[in-house]
């Protein structure tokens, strides 16, 4: 059967579409021209200016601190949720599933405004704590879904075997269940971490005056700031994430 060339052509076009803006961005980060319309020579100037911009590094520190706390909280809540959803069949779990699932299919802006109104109604001062609470809330569902996926392949007979060999419930949980599920829980935690680090919309709604995170900083730089600095910052971030993902893939392969 002769195959049509259309799928190949569309795929190549889609890849070009995906990489064009990224390539322009990386190229411009080394471009001496401020607006990047034309090439006016190679420079590392923007990177130097970036290193000398303390407010960006301060925002990055805040973002990482928020992400760490939010990841810890949502991993605990998401993992217990996944266990409950996997182990029990009841009316309570039907409602529980709906609760865990709904935040995944609601536009971010609705989560953002509803949390803002909630905090306003309770007269809670907006700031870093409200950002952390909001991040935990939207990350729980993602962690729960990832862990639930792994639990569906989990063989509870292994726990029974451990208990037949004399392990008590606590030991079986700690020495059998947790190690076997650790990769799933880690994957969920990693997802929560990246979602928290990258979140702009929800953070924007629940951040107080003077609170800053990296996405909030980047947003105000896009609105009023210096384009070349964002180019340099994005290139650095892209290099970092690519290296991190590449490394974790290598490690996973070696582990196998």
């Amino acid at each position, binding site marked *: 059967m002769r195959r049509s060339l259309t*799928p*190949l052509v*569309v795929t190549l*076009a*889609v*890849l070009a*579409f*995906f*990489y*064009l*803006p*990224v390539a*322009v*961005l990386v190229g411009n980060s080394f471009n001496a021209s401020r607006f*990047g*319309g034309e090439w006016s020579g190679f420079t590392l100037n923007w990177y130097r200016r970036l290193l000398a911009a303390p407010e960006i590094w301060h925002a990055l520190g805040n973002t990482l601190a928020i992400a760490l706390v939010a990841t810890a909280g949502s991993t*605990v*809540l998401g993992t217990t949720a996944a266990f*409950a959803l996997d*182990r*029990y069949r009841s009316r*309570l779990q039907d409602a*529980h599933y709906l*609760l*865990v699932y*709904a935040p995944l*299919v*609601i*536009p971010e*802006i*609705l989560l953002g*405004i509803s*949390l803002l*109104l*909630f905090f*306003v*109604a309770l007269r809670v001062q907006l700031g870093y704590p409200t950002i952390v609470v909001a991040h935990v*809330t939207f990350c*729980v569902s993602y962690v729960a879904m990832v862990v639930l996926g792994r639990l569906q392949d989990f*063989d509870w*007979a292994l*726990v029974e075997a451990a*208990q037949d060999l004399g392990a008590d*419930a606590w030991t079986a949980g700690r020495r059998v269940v947790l190690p076997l599920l650790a990769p799933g829980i880690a994957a969920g935690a990693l997802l929560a971490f990246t979602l928290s680090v*990258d979140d*702009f*919309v929800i953070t924007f*709604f629940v951040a107080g005056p003077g609170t800053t995170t*990296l*996405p909030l900083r*980047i947003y105000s730089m*896009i609105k009023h700031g210096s*384009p070349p600095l*964002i*180019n340099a*910052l*994005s290139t650095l*971030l*892209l290099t970092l994430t*690519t290296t991190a993902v590449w490394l974790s893939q290598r490690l996973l392969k070696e582990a196998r």
Partner: protein
Amino acid sequence: MAEARGLLEPRHEPWITLPSFVWLIVLFTVPAAIVFAIAFKPSDPYGGIGAGWTLQTLRSLGDPNYPAILWRTIWLSVATTALCLVLATPTAYFMARTPERWRHLLLLAIIVPFWTSFLVRIFAWKVVLHPEGLLKRALVALHVVPPEASLLYNAGAVLLVLVYTELPFAILPIYAAAEKFDFKLLEAARDLGAGPLRTFWTVFLPGIRRGLLTATLVTLIPALGSYVVPDLVGGPTSEMLGNKIAQRTFSDRNLPHASALSALLALAVLVPSAAAIALERGRRARQRAEAA
């Protein structure tokens, strides 16, 4: 299910369920209810929420501005979804038919650009579409657009960037469905005399319909709620519901008004979701009836 004694027994159910259950009731359900409630409240001049109840806020949605914005939100989202499906289906088809070791690489190539921050991806388009930017110069040189035309701050730019941000989320579910599709069926249809287009429409598309349905929902829903894309690359003539919600919240500080708009957006999201669920149920019922 195997018996794991003393571990997650029925009597443990409340203890393991309650943490996430209570957290989500308090921080998801209650806030959602508050949005609907505040839509019936008056605003006070200090940017807070007034006392008593009123229908005034809801009535103000009849303002002639809003139907236009709602309509634009819907057509931009539907167009985004349609374009994503048109681009994602051939791509997913190609990926699923690629030999295994290339397939993994191709999948990675689709995902890598999306490891950059969401804001940065939108910003990159702002640079590409900039009046002094590469694309504008090329298009003017080729006489495709007049020199005074703007590629930014219009509905076209919003649509382009929405497709850019949503496309991978359309490709992934369609690819997952296409990967499980039995491509021998296409050959069988061709052997029985069907042309390539007919084979594609009557064999391949129905075969991956679950993937298409998921792709439609995961692109349509975020597009309906989009705020950052029209905010950064759109202009006053390409505002969407999300922009108005943010404006009412931050610029005018009229929270009841923002709530009423959010309730409207929630309805706009619920309609296609409910339709998709009904479609899936109806289909299953029909299949069962046919099997019986």
